[in-house]
């Protein structure tokens, strides 16, 4: 049948040749891109653009883009123009993330590597960047190990370790919601460490764990987990999934009417997830790692305005992660007056972010010997509608100082070894 159609109207070989040509063009065109000027400073972003973390990954990208624009407007890094190279790491495939990291380092010869949202991918990438000796900033992968047990001299992190988040939010949770906790936890590095952190903090405050379940990344139907959780009769169900998983979980919990019987709350919450929820499902006590509505804090309004101009929406914590991570590259290079990774990393120990980058009430600094940024954290409640407009989805009750809730350097287990 197909043969006939083709032979009558269109020579089959022509079709084949056109298809082959079109296919070849797909492969051939990017080769042109490799002819880039050699004197630019390259920042490679290897972050999710597809899958569960697509939304948060894209917001980090926007933050990076804004930072690069600002850096270039202010003369680049050490007088050289900055180029941002972006690769999709996927949301959960470490093989791809590692391959892309290699591509950025080996082929594109990036001076800085950024990524990843997914904690497991961040760990895998950190191993590559360490092996190659490239300055690496993790904007938003939270698992403790990144700047804990498997910390590296070249890997810096902007977002908080999960233990810090757990310590920040636990007192409010115990006070507002009760002491018997049930966990619904995503089954990967971030979830495991966040739950462990909360268990530790909860036990310290006199609370107990009555049960828990691990959910695979990308779960869409949480009903069986919710039924089990309800049967355990906890005071509060601690919900730890992120991204689309968090949206599905919260929606289903509210549809089941669980919010009428049991408190729903958790550790880390993000504006992206709250935006994806119907107003009645925006409930619970959480911790935010950065919030756009900070009346009276200098420079924040400018940043919010710049992002709004770019995207039409307010920045989220993720936007700020990308922004701060990219600026950290410039600050590290100019602080060390060099693009050599070892020199930059050494000079960056204990570095304090200037207020126009930190965008928070207290000083944020990279802790010496751990490379972990110690910023403020915002504890509060999700709200259907806030006083500062439709984007004000989080009611801040307390701004916590990172230094007060961070583990000590010894507790983190980070033992840094520098190259000889």
């Amino acid at each position, binding site marked *: 049948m197909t043969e006939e159609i083709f032979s009558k109207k269109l020579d089959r070989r022509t079709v084949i040749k056109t298809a082959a040509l079109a296919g070849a063009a797909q492969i051939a065109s990017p080769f042109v891109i490799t002819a880039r000027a050699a004197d630019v400073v390259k920042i490679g972003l290897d972050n999710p653009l597809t899958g569960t973390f697509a939304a948060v990954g894209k917001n980090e990208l926007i933050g990076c883009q804004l930072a690069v624009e600002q850096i270039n407007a202010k003369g680049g890094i050490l007088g050289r123009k900055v180029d941002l190279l972006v*690769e999709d790491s996927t949301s959960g495939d*470490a093989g791809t993330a*590692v391959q892309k990291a290699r591509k950025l380092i080996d*082929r594109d010869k990036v001076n800085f590597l950024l990524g990843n949202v997914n904690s497991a991918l961040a760990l895998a990438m950190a191993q590559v960047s360490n092996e190659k000796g490239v300055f690496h900033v993790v904007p938003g992968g939270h698992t403790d190990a990144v700047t804990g047990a*498997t910390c590296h001299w070249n890997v810096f992190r902007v977002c908080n370790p999960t233990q810090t988040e757990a310590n920040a939010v636990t007192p409010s949770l115990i006070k507002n919601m009760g002491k018997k906790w049930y966990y619904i936890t995503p089954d990967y590095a971030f979830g495991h460490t966040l739950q462990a952190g909360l268990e530790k903090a909860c036990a310290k405050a006199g609370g107990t764990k009555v049960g828990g379940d691990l959910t695979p990344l990308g779960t869409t139907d949480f009903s069986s987990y919710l039924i089990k959780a309800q049967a355990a009769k906890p005071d509060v169900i601690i919900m730890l999934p992120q991204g689309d998983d968090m949206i599905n979980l919260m929606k289903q919990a509210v549809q089941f009417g669980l919010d009428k019987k049991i408190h729903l709350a958790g550790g880390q919450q993000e504006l992206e997830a709250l935006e994806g929820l119907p107003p009645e499902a925006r409930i619970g006590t959480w911790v935010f790692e950065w919030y756009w509505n900070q009346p009276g804090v200098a420079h924040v309004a400018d940043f919010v305005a710049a992002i709004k101009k770019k995207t039409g929406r307010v920045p989220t914590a993720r936007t700020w992660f990308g922004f701060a991570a990219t600026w950290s590259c410039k600050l590290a290079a100019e602080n060390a007056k060099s693009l050599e990774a070892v020199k930059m990393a050494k000079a960056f120990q204990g570095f304090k972010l200037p207020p126009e980058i930190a965008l928070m009430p207290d000083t944020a600094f990279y802790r010496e010997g751990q490379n972990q940024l110690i910023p403020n954290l915002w504890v509060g409640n999700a709200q259907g509608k806030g006083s500062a407009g439709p984007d004000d989805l989080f009611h801040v009750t307390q701004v916590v100082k990172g230094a007060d809730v961070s583990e000590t350097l010894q507790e983190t287990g980070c033992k840094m070894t520098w190259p000889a």
Partner: protein
Amino acid sequence: METLNRQTANIIVWLLLLAMPFWIKALGGYTELCTQVLVYALAAMALNFLLGFTGVLSFGHAAYFGLGAYGVAMTIKYLVASTPLALLVGIVVGTIAAAIIGWLIVNLRGVYFAMVTIAFGQVFYFITFRWNNVTGGDDGLTGWSRVPIDLGFTRIDILHNPTAFYYVVLAIFAVAVGIMAFLLRSPFGRTLLAIRENERRARFLGIPVERHIWLSFLISCLFVSLAGGLYALLNNFVDPRALRWDMSGNFVIIAVLGGMRSFWGPMIGAAIFVVLQDYVSSMTENWMSFLGLFFVLIVLFFPRGVLGILRRKSLS
């Protein structure tokens, strides 16, 4: 005449492979991309030993690929820091699993065989996914890296020198491919072809069909687990995705893409697959659609794969 052509083709293939790290850079590639092509090519050629030359479709080869990978990773991390020994352990683990599972499923045919291979593949996937303490679960197994090979008279630093690693992989690839080619030319290989063409007639001729399919499955899985081990060494990392059904699907796609009736077909398929994935994914986040479209086009218009087109062209 034909054998002469085949020999020139072989020589060209090997020359291209030997020089790949040099010409790939001119085309905007990088050395690790070459190594990745080799690893996928080996896996797909091993699958094709079963698919193209025995006529049995397995959709669960990623299980043995992943077992090889975890064998290598866990040997280096927990037992001894030796790359050759780790590879050996990886192969043995993958092959033993294949021997047992192959024995269980060898009586099934066609789609039933394919479905049971998927099922067994997923069993291994969930074991690695769930067994957090040992396999690292969804996070994968980190904290180890390939170890330089000590040959006694010299040391090959495959960790810091990607080109050296490429040539080590190429050497292993050459041996593996050589063994497969030799097997296919032997009476054993001819018997497999006979089974592929007409299983009933082969049975009437007194050929123990089940045993041959089991052996073919075993050999195929042996080389797939070798490829898996090399994959782990390439990434210095392994996670449960290496065992999942979509990885198995990738191998089948690669084999079909390149041409599953020809010996070198899967390698062409691997080169296209890896390079396309690498470049298109840098340009658009919808890269999977392009890969899918390309595959659909190939299957619709060139059911014998890319090498099939070239071969037909040379005949006409």
